[in-house]
């Protein structure tokens, strides 16, 4: 089951990593938790010449919050740390929930969110919530950095916007405005340790009147080659008033924009029906959270 042999380097600092990656980037792969990479290598779908292990780089670990900038999660942070973080639970509870649903406890202690996002599987757990949050990616470039909205990151099946010599450095989740919330909904066949059949991240923001939808993001996973937002539907829903008509339009809209395929996990027709249900449940969950927030204020 072993693939081709490969070399291994473990830089001791971010600076050392950056120069090694600049020099050897072409035939090297970044190794974070290895939970995607080693499965691909063992299944002979990938044969890198060199692995550069970033898993213990202190500069790439940690979670912080700033009222102006929001939540910053460094790329090498373990999924298990995100699941347990008090800051994430407070400022992005849907992300903590998605993290808790990724794989098993062992996988979560090994895996990183950067690996989840860079692997760019359309069924991945965290991208829908990150899209719903309007997350900005901080990308390390040779000699500097740039930021990119995550909505521009997934280009095609397992293809990302990272260019040669670039790597993912951090996730920034802007602070949530008043009267807004994010929800995560998923549907699988068993309760743990599986690839989602469908998942969805939902962002809802209400105007000061508390009944008009001022902003909305609907991010869908497993309904196309990448995780993506139902942008047409989002546009149509903005400005609508809450109520049954709005809910029905949201459900019908995402079902229309979803382009699922039949595979071993579910049929396309079934996915189309369920995605509408997930949208409705996610929006209801957002409303509940917005209501709670107001109760506390």
């Amino acid at each position, binding site marked *: *089951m*072993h*693939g081709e*042999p*490969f*070399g*291994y380097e*473990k830089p001791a600092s971010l600076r050392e990593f950056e120069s090694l990656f600049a020099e050897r980037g072409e035939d090297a792969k970044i*190794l974070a938790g*290895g*939970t995607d990479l*080693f*499965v691909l290598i*063992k*299944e002979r779908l990938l044969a890198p010449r060199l*692995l550069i*292990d970033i*898993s213990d780089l202190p500069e790439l670990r940690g979670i912080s919050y700033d009222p102006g900038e929001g939540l910053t999660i460094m790329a090498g942070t373990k999924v*298990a740390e995100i699941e347990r973080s008090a800051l994430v639970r407070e400022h992005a509870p849907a992300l903590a929930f998605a993290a*808790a649903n990724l*794989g*098993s*406890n*062992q*996988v979560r*202690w*090994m895996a990183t969110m950067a690996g989840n996002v860079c692997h760019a599987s359309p069924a991945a757990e965290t991208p829908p919530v990150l899209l719903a949050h309007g997350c900005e990616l901080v990308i390390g470039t040779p000699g500097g950095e740039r930021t990119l909205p995550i909505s521009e990151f997934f280009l095609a099946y397992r293809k990302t916007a990272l260019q040669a010599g670039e790597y993912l450095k951090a996730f920034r989740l802007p602070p949530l405005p008043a009267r807004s919330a994010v929800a995560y909904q998923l549907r699988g066949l068993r*309760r*743990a*340790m599986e690839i989602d059949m469908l998942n969805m991240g939902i962002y809802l923001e209400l105007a000061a009147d508390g009944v008009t939808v001022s902003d909305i993001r609907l991010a869908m996973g497993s309904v196309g080659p990448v995780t993506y937002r139902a942008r047409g539907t989002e546009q149509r829903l903005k400005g609508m008033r809450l109520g049954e008509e709005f809910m029905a339009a949201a459900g019908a809209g995402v079902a229309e924009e979803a382009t699922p395929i039949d595979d071993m996990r579910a049929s396309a027709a079934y996915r189309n029906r369920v995605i509408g249900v997930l949208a409705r449940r996610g929006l209801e969950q957002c409303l509940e959270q917005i209501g709670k927030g107001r109760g506390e204020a």
Partner: protein
Amino acid sequence: MKKLLTLEINGERFDVAVSPATFLVDVIRETVGLTGTKKGCGIGDCGACTVLIDGRPTLSCLTLAVACTGKSITTIEGLSRGTELHPVQQAFIDKGAIQCGYCTPGMILSSTALLAENPSPSEEEIKHGLAGNLCRCTGYVKIIEAVKHAAETMAKEAK
């Protein structure tokens, strides 16, 4: 080309020469000779190869041995104190949570890590913590009972 490295397993240091592409499970079983750690699927799905690395439950089939220098590795052989079994090991025996035993080392290490973090887990929390360890024999009911029982014994011992 092989690399020389030192691994700390169950508090003992082992000098081994391995190729960078060797996975920890193979080094533990074949080079070091500790065969308590099992290898099932080899791709992360079954949990039989679970060990603790710096206390965290880790799949040794998806971990390179070279990546483990400077870390502390615990395998099932490292849990007992002399001839006295760890309370989680004893609870698995007392509650009949072992049949063929193939999943047991991984199950026990995952349970130990769970109890270290959460000394009195609910049934849901036990299921969440052990979801990555598959058992083809017991149907899990007795395993969950064993973890609850171990939690009680450990709470008493702590007093």
